[in-house]
């Protein structure tokens, strides 16, 4: 009964606008999928964090408690907790259901740019403009970080966690890979200030976008450059980049109002998604499907590979 595997289809790109959500929370600083991709989080500049249903585009909950604009958020693997960081130098751990602040973590000396849960949501990692990454324990009641990673010489702009590895991108132009298992720190010099770093889904490569309008795919183990993606404009803003769910494409925000999508292997531009006129601030790729979130000004747009019936439903509404 062994059927031959169907021939893999050509990778699809999220080129159809599924819906636009007006978040009503000022500029959306970051938009994030939750871990299964059913919900999305939008970080607003009006100090609020909002949870939306991905399928219907409805607002589920607003989390307010930050003292300044929310810059990044992440949801735990079990969807029970959300962590968010803000310009008010704090990281807040939220209870999703009640919307209450479970913990407010202070310690950063400047605004906190990025925040991530560890795989099991036991640790919150936050990177700040003060150049440190702080590892906060969610299990204990300690309010001090477990460890402060102060190797960076400049602001931490982005960080990602994958299993036992922590990837940070810093404005000092270095991508740092902390390997907890090996007890090693790999520093890759990129020279230009890093705006965003990503792991590939297979965990073998790292993607880093920098202010020289380049996205680079580096081999994680050696630091060699596997691919370089250019064409977009990233000169002054901290914009996101990401890989598609199947590692087929590299996507990056651009200051010219487009999302650029390159073929990972070829390095050729395969899609230039017109999002709007302003800067595309943030984007997030669905963890399993071909679905893309983009944030521009106060709106979050959902893009899918093909216009679905869900889209029609939404239109009907």
């Amino acid at each position, binding site marked *: 009964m062994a059927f031959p595997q169907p021939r893999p289809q050509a990778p699809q790109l999220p080129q159809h606008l599924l819906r636009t959500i007006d978040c009503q929370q000022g500029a959306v600083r970051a938009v994030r999928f939750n871990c299964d991709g059913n919900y999305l989080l939008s970080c607003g500049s009006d100090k609020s964090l909002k949870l939306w249903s991905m399928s219907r585009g409805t607002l589920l909950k607003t989390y307010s408690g930050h003292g300044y604009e929310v810059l990044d958020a992440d949801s735990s693997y079990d969807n029970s907790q959300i962590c968010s960081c803000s310009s008010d130098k704090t990281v807040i751990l939220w209870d999703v259901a009640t919307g209450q602040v479970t913990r407010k973590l202070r310690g950063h000396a400047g605004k906190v740019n990025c925040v991530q849960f*560890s795989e099991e949501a*036991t640790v919150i990692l936050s990177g700040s403009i003060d150049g440190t990454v702080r590892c906060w324990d969610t*299990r204990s009641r300690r309010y001090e970080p*477990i460890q402060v990673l102060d190797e960076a010489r400049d602001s931490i702009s982005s960080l990602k966690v994958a299993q036992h590895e922590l990837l940070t991108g810093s404005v000092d132009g270095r991508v740092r890979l902390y390997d*907890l298992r090996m007890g090693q*720190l790999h*520093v890759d010099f990129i020279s230009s200030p890093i705006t965003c770093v990503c792991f590939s889904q297979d965990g*073998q490569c790292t993607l880093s976008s920098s202010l020289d309008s380049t996205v680079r795919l*580096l081999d994680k183990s050696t630091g060699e450059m596997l691919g370089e993606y250019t064409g977009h404009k990233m000169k002054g803003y901290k914009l996101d980049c990401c890989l598609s769910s199947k590692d087929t494409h590299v996507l990056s925000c651009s200051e010219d109002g487009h999302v650029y999508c390159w073929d990972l*292997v070829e390095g050729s531009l395969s899609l230039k998604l017109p999002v709007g006129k302003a800067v595309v601030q943030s984007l997030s790729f669905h963890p399993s499907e071909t679905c893309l979130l983009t944030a521009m000004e106060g709106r979050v747009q959902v893009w899918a590979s093909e216009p679905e019936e869900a889209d029609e439903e939404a239109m009907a509404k």
Partner: protein
Amino acid sequence: MASDSDSDEDFVTYGTPLEPLEEDKPLKKPIPLHEQTVKDEKGRYKRFHGAFTGGFSAGYFNTVGSKEGWAPSAFVSSRQQKAGKQNARPEDFMDEEDFSEHGIAPREITTSSEFSSSRRDQAAEKAKAINAQAALIPGDTLLEELIAPARLSIGVELLRKMGWKEGQGVGPRVKRKTRRQQMDGGSRVYGCALPSAGAEDSEDDDDEEFAPENVTFAPKDVTPVDFSPRMGVQGLGYRGLDPGLALLGHGAPEHIDLFKPQSEARSRLFGDERSGTRRGGVAGQAFGVGALEDDDDEDVYHRDSMSRYDSVLGGEEPGDRLYGWTAPQQYSRNKDRSKDVSYLGKILEGFTLAQKPAKEKTIFPPPSLPRDYRPVQGFRPVVEVSRLSGVSPALAKALRTSRGHMVKEEPQQGGRHQLHSGQRRTLLGEDALQGPSSVMELLRPEDRQRLLNLRNASNQTSNQTSNQTSNQTSTPESRVSVVSSPSSGLQQQQEALAAWRGVQISTQTFRPFEKNPSKQERYELYLNRLKQGDKDALDRSLDPAMTEWERSRERDEFVRASILYRPSSSSLSTRFTRAQHQEDDDTVEVSRDQEGDIDDKQAAVTMKMFGKLTRETFEWHPDKLLCKRFNVPDPFPGSGTVGLPKVKRDKFSVFNFLTVAESREPTALLKPPESMKKSRWDVSEQKKEEDCLSEMLSAARSQTETKVEKPASLPASSSSSQQTEVKAADQKKKEGDEDQEEEEDRPPMDLFKAIFASSSEEKSSSSSEGGSDEEEDGKMDSQPLNLFNISSVTSSSATTSSSSSSITTSSSITSSSITTSSSITSSSITTSSSITSSSTSYSATSSQLPVSSKASTQQDDEEFGPKLPPPSAALTRGGATSVSEERKPSRRSKDKKHKNKKQHKHKKDKKKKKQKKHKHKVKQQKKKETDSSSEDSEEDGQVSTDELLKRLKNIRSHQTW
């Protein structure tokens, strides 16, 4: 307790011990009712009768009341016999023996005290009344007074017969008016004391106002002492809330003084109420207000506040200076009594004011001091023997005994402050310091000369021309500059020799190699030899068992240390005492692994050569808890460090400074001949490779950045280096061991190979661009390894082989420089064309880095104490640089291949297996390369590359500084 009794020791126990509790024994059952027996007080058993047997306590043989028993009596109306009816009490029906049982005292009829013959004492009554006033319910004795006994005691009756009236005192009548029954503290005399003088005085005062002449008065009545015991726990004089105030309908005063004497209440009791204000009824403090109170606006529920209470004895005084004393106006008017009165108000109950004031203590004044008295003991100056050096000892002794009358007084006899330190030292009997007495002695003779000159110049009269002065100053300056920059190691050695010669050994010299005893020993040996003026002290003091490299290194260290800690500075050290505790604080925590040169990486990035060049790997210690949270075993289970490991470095190490100084100075000038020798060996291979890479990169960078600038800068730098080279050559000539030196100076072979063989290679490789991928890949991977092999081989060969003299070196400068520049330009062109391709090759090259870096760190570990900088790192670096620089173009094309292959690999689903295939080929390739390169190096060994090195060095320095 029970358990204690088991022991043999005797303890004093109180009470009866409980019976030992036995667990098995059932609890004692209470005796059931039917077994309980009742006995009367005589021991007779008594029977109780239940309802069927006659009831309670039957008489008449357990019958009730009568023989018939419990027979109901017929009802008899008592209506007509009311008067005769007595109220029956329970006792009437009780047995007398039961009285005590029920708490009923036996009764007897006696005359009560009230009606006994003893008469009531009025005075006692008064005292009682006073006490009653003090009681919480005022006037409760008034009720008793209502039941006044009909009879008076015989004494009172007798008194009355004699004319005594109630309220009067006993005694002969006096010619005064009736005393007001004023209760003043002063007149209260307790016991049988006579009326006090004070009381009489007060009467005198009263007379002044109205004193009828012909009337006599009875003496004042005396109130006996109240011997009522104190019941409360309050302090003396405590009075509690004054119920008298409650009687004033006016409410409470502003301030409540709990310790105020009771005079007010008493005076009120004795009837002379001055109160027009007093109104009936009870109000305010401690009492509620009756419903019939006519004042509705009265504060019924008086609110008390703590602010109205004193928390301490003797609170603030009221403003009227009466201190609560409600004396009549005339008392307060009286000036000379005011003090007494004011004090009286405060007298505690049971105390009286002293009649006589306490005797004043007479204090005698201290004796007046004479005017010229000085409270310092002075000694007569003692004549010192030392001062009497010219006099014979006998005379001196005589003089001393005669207190130095004959000796001329020293002019500075004024005191110790006029003595200078030397004189004080002799006074104290201390030894003179070992070191030089003046700062001038610490200076070198030239410097001292210069200073003297300066001083002379300033002292010279103003008519001298300024030109002259400037002349004088300028010449020494130039001399100084010459001195301060020791031109060579030999010079340094000689300097050390000059400095140490003839210096006697002192234990306090600095021990720079304290941590390595044997080394320190050698160093001291060296110093000793120096002191003896031994010219080749250095070579003799070194350990012959050591390797050449170690020896040369140590030699350099010794020379430097000896110069730094030459006797002048050691004499400085004698002027200071050593710290008792060695401080460990002079170390700084530095992260162990320093990040490499950013410039190199920057260059790599611009050339898009990511990988080994841009990657650095550090040991990083995650927190234990972090590992736990990430479900990862702790990579460093034993280590307590967190983050990047830190090492302690000396904060103020001599050798730290040396490092800085050295790197700034031109290499040729600084390097002593010996150090040249060791230079090849001193630096680890790794270092070379790193340097060559960095050099290559920086060169590439410079090309891309300033192509125009380069040719201009090159000649200049080369010329300067030429000069220095010539100088160095001259020195070498002097020494006479040219051959050896030259041998060391020669760069590794691959440099030559790179220079001369590169162009052809480049062509061939570039032509093969885009050819068969697999083969090229193999080559490429092999190349970096080759490079290392070559360098090591060539370097070893270079030491053994002899080379040309320095003169030839200098002559060949120009030619080599030209080739360098030309090759640079050509390489720059190729660089631009194949930027992407080169990245991989570099990464491959640096793949060796981690291993070799480890090796270098191991070397470092062998070092002890403050590290010496590798003496000629810069020089070797330059050499290595040039090598790689020249080699670079040759490898370009191959790099490209590699890149292509990489991309290809990605297309094939990023399979990484292919790389393994190439490994075999890599090795083969390596072998080939080593062979060829070694040949090349031998051929081109003759070419002097010193200039080339220098130039490259200069280029580099231009960029970095």
